[in-house]
């Protein structure tokens, strides 16, 4: 998704360009910006007012500080992101967190990294049962808690 339209107050084109630098292409997968994740990012951020404010502020502040970002080369873009990370750590953290969350819930990513990709419920996971033999060594130790008279 590379439209220039704004959804709410979030600039899609800018968000796509930032995502491309945060999570680059790997193997058969394109970079995060080219995977069409921006709609989900905007929708998810809007689930909480506090977080949405942080997220929108992050995009707006970044855009205001870097008006030519989308036309810059990769090295210049990385420098701009590093500067923003340093100057506005809370806003950058919000942006990076939601980028990672949405990227790692994508089924194409799950296939690549071998992640099962389901919510943990209701099935849970299998674990081997408790095996008391693991206590063989530690059981030999004498009590060493401090007694109180």
């Amino acid at each position: 998704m590379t439209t220039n339209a704004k959804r709410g107050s979030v600039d899609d084109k800018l968000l796509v360009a930032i995502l491309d630098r945060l999570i680059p292409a790997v193997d058969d997968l394109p970079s995060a910006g080219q995977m069409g994740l921006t709609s989900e990012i905007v929708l998810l951020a809007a689930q909480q007012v506090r977080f949405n404010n942080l997220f929108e502020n992050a995009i707006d502040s970044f855009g205001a500080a870097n008006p030519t970002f989308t036309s810059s080369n990769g090295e210049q873009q990385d420098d701009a992101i590093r500067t923003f990370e340093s100057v506005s750590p809370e806003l950058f953290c919000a942006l990076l967190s939601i980028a990672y969350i949405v990227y790692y819930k994508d089924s194409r990513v799950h296939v690549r990294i071998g992640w099962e990709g389901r919510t943990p419920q209701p099935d849970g996971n299998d674990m081997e049962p408790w095996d008391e033999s693991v206590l063989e060594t530690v059981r030999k130790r004498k009590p060493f808690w401090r007694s109180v008279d």
Partner: protein
Amino acid sequence: MTKNNGSPIEKTVEETVDILVIGAGASGGAATAWLSEAGFKVKCLEQGYWQDPSKYASASQDYEFEMMTNWAPDPNMRQRDEDYPVNDSESPVTPVMFNGVGGSTILWTAHTPRFHPSDFRVKSLDGVADDWPITYDELEEFYDLNDAVMGCSGINGDPANPPRSPRQMPPLPLGTDGKKLISGFEKLGWHWWPSDSYINSQRYGEGRDACNFCGHNHMGCYQRAKSSTDLTYWPRALKSGAEIETGARVRRITTDDSGRATGADYVDSKGNERHQGARAVIMAANGIGTPRLLLNSASDTHPDGLSNSTGLVGKNLMFHPFAMISGTFPEKMKTWQGPLGNIAFSQEFYETDKSRGFVRGYTYQFQRSLGPAWIAKGGFRDPVPWGKDHHEVLEKRLGSVMAMAVIGEDLPENHNAVDLDPKLTDSDGIPAPRIRYTLSKNSRDQLDHAIENAKKALEAAGASDIFVDPMMRQSGWHLMGTARMGDDPAESVVDKWGQSHDVDNLFIVDGSVFVTSAAVNPTPTIQALALRTADYIVTNRQDLKG
């Protein structure tokens, strides 16, 4: 209607009950159940609501997002209507909690060690802080009672702790990852033991399944395998006639002209001002909420706040500041399977050894890690870098990161305190708490010692890329000490039964009453103390029955 020292607000008055409990969490649930089963008419006011386990963050496809927003343990991040803000700008540790029926047991890890006998005698043994007015032996029967209600998975024989009654269920399995981490302790000859956990390793309690190892019970347990008081104490309390009102935010404890408690003014879920009369009041609102309410209850007869003639309400706040040391193993071990923090613990360095350069000691709580987004965001360590190295680092860490949390004994200091923020309020205009906290040199020395030893243990187990968070900011789970107990009314807020020295029908049962913090998760001790206080009321305060 009780005179409320000049409050001009029109209130609806509820029928007087024997006991009014403020807060429906770990201690409030335990006290309410005990008292209502003994025939007292008990009502609880809880500012939060009942929770539906099928709607916990752990059941959501967007659980990673939910845990940093609507289900965040930090109320300043969660910002639900039922939460109150906390000014923590003068503290390196952020207090975390949950407001609802079950309280913070909804989001806890349910790691449930007990205090050691020495923890009650730190002044006598080590010359620091104060001794408790009670002993381990006096509390033991209430630990046992609480274990039976909450349901404890574990095993006897731990050489670091006194013998105890049989656990209700066998330990949770260690997993491949747990065994790997333990191998480091075995190589070094250091103590470890399977954790006591209030998580079902098999079916236990009404409607509560065994753990399915989803790995996300700290986000609320969908399976009802993790014990929380909405599933354990509250069904018993309601069955025996107790009443609970949710969405009820208490403004103040009210008092009469003689200074005795008469109930509480509160705002109900629809915004109506109400008064609940009571013959006695029990505070169970946690180590921050309780001092906040006592300070908000200042009146002509209690000008510095209720039960605060000593000025100690809100003072001596203890947190257990956490250090977290993580390592990356070469093996892929599915570290996201199984409860996050309930593998095992080590108390090799628990008791005082002054040659280490500090007094008291610490516990290691072994930790797993979670899925790719959690790993990418940092989990227990720094975030995976963005940019060209991102994929390589993520793949190294996923399924391979394990950590050790350090819980060091935080000693009481008068300047570590909760008071009322001069400006900040909750959505009903009630003054919010402000936290002032600095880490003591003794605590810092403990943590530094623990960090160096954790590195040794991780390396012995085969980990590399070791990362140290010397003090986690979002680690203020254990809220203790702000209305301490003691025999001397000049040096404490409540007596050894949790009864206020100033107000004979006011009791406190949450972590506020702790004299010292020990070096373990405090909830079993909080609940045992709550049961003990309730038992005292049943035995000695029948005058409170209407």
